[in-house]
């Protein structure tokens, strides 16, 4: 099977990217963004429709997982906390949710240790961060629309 060397035109509506600082500009004290848009763009070849589909999937899945986490923390079910936090962290890391992942890893760690000492507070922080992610992505993708999945929260 001989491959045609011409790369087919895959022009699609371009997805927006977060602005990056100029290399020669002084380094400002920039707060870390909740989402690495580069990873999302990479994963979808910059196709805006694919990004929307992926984000919608992430929002639905994470909304369910956060509900499961809240219930597991309240019921002090450490292994459930570990399992759900692990899965949620994997997906979030894959999509570049940089500030969300450490909170989930902390929940996973506490779940694995069997001692949910600060899990309730960490869960609250994670839920708050998830809202920020929703708002950030909604603003990136469609400034006029409400955040996708916001109805679930």
């Amino acid at each position, binding site marked *: *099977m001989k491959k045609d060397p011409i790369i087919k035109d895959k022009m699609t509506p371009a997805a927006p990217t977060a602005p990056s600082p100029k290399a020669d500009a002084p380094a400002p004290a920039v707060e870390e963004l909740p989402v690495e848009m580069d990873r999302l763009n990479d994963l979808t070849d910059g196709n805006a429709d694919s990004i929307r589909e*992926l984000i919608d999937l992430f929002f639905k899945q994470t909304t369910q997982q956060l509900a499961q986490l809240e219930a597991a923390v309240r019921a002090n079910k450490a292994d459930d906390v570990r399992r759900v936090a*692990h899965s949620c962290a*994997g*997906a979030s890391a894959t999509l570049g949710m940089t500030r969300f992942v450490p909170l989930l890893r902390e929940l996973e760690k506490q779940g694995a240790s069997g001692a949910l000492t600060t899990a309730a507070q960490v869960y609250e922080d994670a839920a708050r961060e998830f809202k920020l992610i929703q708002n950030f992505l909604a603003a990136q993708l469609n400034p006029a629309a409400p955040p996708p999945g916001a109805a679930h929260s």
Partner: protein
Amino acid sequence: MKKVLIIEDDQIVANVYRNKLAVEGYQTEAALDGETGLKVMRTFQPDAIVLDLILPKMSGIEVIKEIRSEADFSKLPIIVFSNTYLTNLIQDAWKAGATKCVSKINCPPKELLELMRRTIGGGAVSPARPTTDGAPATKPAKFTSEADAEFQAGLQKTLIASLPATLVALRAGLQSLIKSDTEVARLKHIHELYRRVHAVNGNAGIAGLVLIAHLAAALEALLKELYEKPKNINSSTLRTIAATVDFLGFLFERSTRPDKQEIPPVSILVVDDEVISRRAIIYALEKAQLESVSVEDPNAAFKLLSENQFDLVFLDVDMPGMTGYELCTKLRNLPLHKKTPVVFITGLSDFDNRTSSMMAGGNDFIAKPFLFIELTVKALIHVLRGKLQPAK
């Protein structure tokens, strides 16, 4: 006579293309960087430009934008050479105004000639026979497909002769990278290695050594990503670079053998209970046109493995019902999969603890969250090794 300007920083590649177009009746000029290319364009007034996207001083994208901003050249055909693994760069090239994007992996001079004929016409019957060393063509000769094959064989011979020295340079670059103890030094060595690998990709592509060109292109994309996002330089990515240089050495040694110069059809199994991670793995495999089957349930995966041959298996470690390690231990008892490469996908914190992976019979591992191109590179190495050097 139609005029073509080639903007390409690799002098060998530029000369080979230039020579081929010249003997086919095109008037050609070459420039080794973008700034020079723009100056030459204004005086030479070409009918088409052949442009490498990876250039020193001024990037290929900037060159396209500059060309399109000048009224005289706003419609000028620009044929861009790129690396198929750099998908975002290709998107940028389209957006900037490229006319055609061509993969460097598989574009020997004959292909470029055909593309040029289709794009701007011209290219009369050749008045001269091409040479492979970049020297001007002078001897008139009847041009036939045999002559083309001879030309291509000459190119291959020249490249193959240079591969041992190329491998020494790649290994030296890798050693410098591994030993570097500051981020500045690390980035410098990543960039040097990236430039070398870029040259390997271009040279192997024109010589028709497609497997080498493929792997070099994927490694080039990985190195570019690490250079632009140094926080991703870690024990996993460094290990992947080392394995790729090592495997390029293996391909170099085999370059005189009559291996089929194409990625063979393969079947890959992906097992991960989480849908977004599965999707990311499949996407990374598709970058190299590697087909895969994915399942979320390890028990369903075991059933599939019992009934089907796979060339490579990616396993998540932490899955409900059966861990990746347990599944690997079980699949090693299947006659079909005693030697099938298994790659674990595991958290970076567990990355240095390799005991469980090896005890379970795994061959390799990659840290989560992985760079998509890193997974692509790993998959290419395992499937090509399996096809070229089947396990005994």
